[in-house]
C-alpha cells in the first residue's frame, strides 16, 4: 500500500469525530484489558470485604442466595 493511499484512508477516516472517538475509546479499552490482565483485576468478581488493622474497612455487597435456601428449603 502506497503512502499516498494510507494518507487518503486516514483523511477519510478522520472526517467524522465518531471514528476518532471510537479509536480513542477502543485503544483505552485495550489498555484497560492489559492492565486488568496483569494486575489480576476481574471486572465482575466475587464480593469481598476487606479489613485492615488500622480500622479501615471496605464493604461490598454479599449474596443473599444461600440465606434463602437456608430458611426456605
Amino acid at each position, binding site marked *: 500500500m502506497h503512502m499516498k493511499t494510507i494518507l487518503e484512508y486516514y483523511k477519510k477516516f478522520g472526517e467524522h469525530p465518531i471514528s476518532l472517538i471510537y479509536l480513542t475509546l*477502543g485503544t483505552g479499552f*485495550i489498555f484497560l484489558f492489559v492492565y486488568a490482565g496483569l*494486575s*489480576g483485576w*476481574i471486572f465482575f468478581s466475587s464480593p469481598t470485604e476487606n479489613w485492615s488493622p488500622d480500622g479501615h474497612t471496605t464493604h461490598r455487597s454479599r449474596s443473599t442466595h444461600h440465606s434463602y435456601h437456608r430458611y426456605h428449603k
Partner: protein
Amino acid sequence: MSNSLNEYINEFFYQGHVCPECKKGLTIRNTSTSKYVVCEHCASFLAYNNNKFTLLHTFLKREAPLFPLYSKCTIEHKTYEVISYRYCRDKNEAYYWKEYTLQHPQAPELILTEYQGHWILSKEIHVSQVKKGDSNQIVFNDKKLKLFGSYKILTVNALGEFETNVTSDEGPHYREYVNAPDIITVELNDNGTVYFHGVHISKQEMNSLFPAIQLPNQRGIGSVQPFMKGFSTRWLWMLFGIFSVLLIALQMVFAFTAKNKILIDRNVYLYDSSGFLAPHVSDEFLIEDTYFGTTNLRYSLYANVDNSWFETDVSLVNTMTGQEIQFQQGVEYYHGADYSEGSTNETASLSYIPEGRYKLIATAYRDPVTINPISSYTYRLVQEEVIWINFILILLALLFIPLAMELWKYNFESRRWANSNFGS
C-alpha cells in the same frame, strides 16, 4: 402613469415585451432559447414565438419562491442566476416540491430542488456516464443507486422563462435513483432519455449560497440526505476487527502465560477430635511474582451435599500486615424426581489480591436439618487463573459503538425509504 412613461419603462426594463393579459412588462433574458415565459404580474403562462405571446395557462399564485428571480449565487467560482422557478406536485400523489433553474452563460444549467427543507443540486450528464444495474438499479461512478421514485410532474405555480411547456399534460416521466448523497434523475420524454446527476446540499451550504434568505426547517429524512456527512460504519467495523484481533491475541497470551499456581489444596474434616465444628486454619502460603503487586485468586469448594447446603466464611489473613480479605462461598444441591438444582462444586473469583504471605481461615456452616450430613469438604486456592469475563466484557464494549451506529443508520434509512414506493 402616462402611456408614454409606461412605454418607456417597458422599453427600458423589459426590452419592449408586454404581457397580452395584464399589459404590463415581461422579462425575457434568453430570447434565443426561452420559448415560454410567466408574467410575474398576472401569473399567465405564455408561449413566446417571433416576439408574439400566446396565453396557455394561468397559474394560481401559490407558494412564492424563496429566492427572487434573477438573484445570484456563486457555485465553484461561477456566478449563477435564478432564471426560473416551479412549484411542482407529483401528478398521482400529494408530494410538493420547489425547483429553481440556475443559469451561467458559460456553464451547463443547474437545477436546485427543495423538498421539506432538503436541498438537491443537479445538472445534466451524458448518457454514457450511467449504466444499467440489477433490477431497479443503475450504476453511476461505480456506485449502485436504487430506484426511489417514479412520477410525472404537475406544475402548480411557476415564474421566469422555460424552454419547454411545463403545463403540458404530456410532460416527461421521471424516475429517481438514490444512494446518498447522490441522485440520478432519469427524464423520459418524447425525444428520448435525459439523465441528471444531483447531490444533497446541506442547510449550511445553502446558507452560504444564499446568505440573505431564511431557509425552511428540515422535516423528515431527505431522499439523499447522508446519514452523517463523512461518516461510514465501514470504518468502525474495520476498527472493531483490528481491536478484536488484538484482544484475542492478548487473551491468548494471558491464557498461555497464566500461572494457575495451586497455593493450597486441602480436604477438611468438619469436626475436631472433640466432636465440635471447628474453624480451619491453613498453613502459610506465599502469593508472589505479580506485575503490579496484585493478582487474582480462584477459590474452589467441593462438598458432597445432598438436598442440603453447605457454606464457608473465608478470611485470607496477611501474616505480615494483618490485613484480611473476607468472602463467603457455599454449595447447595437439591434434586427430586423431575428436577435438580445447584451443584456440589462452586468457585469464587477474587480480584486484585495484594501479594504477600497469607493464611486461610475458613469457618464452615451446614444445613442443620438435613438427613444426609456431610463430614468433610475440599477447597483449593489457585493463583492467577485465566479470566474470560474481562475478555467478553471488553469485546462487548468494543462492539457497542459500531452496533449502535449500525442500528441508528438502519433506523435512518428506514425513515428515508418510508417516503418511497419502492421499499429499501
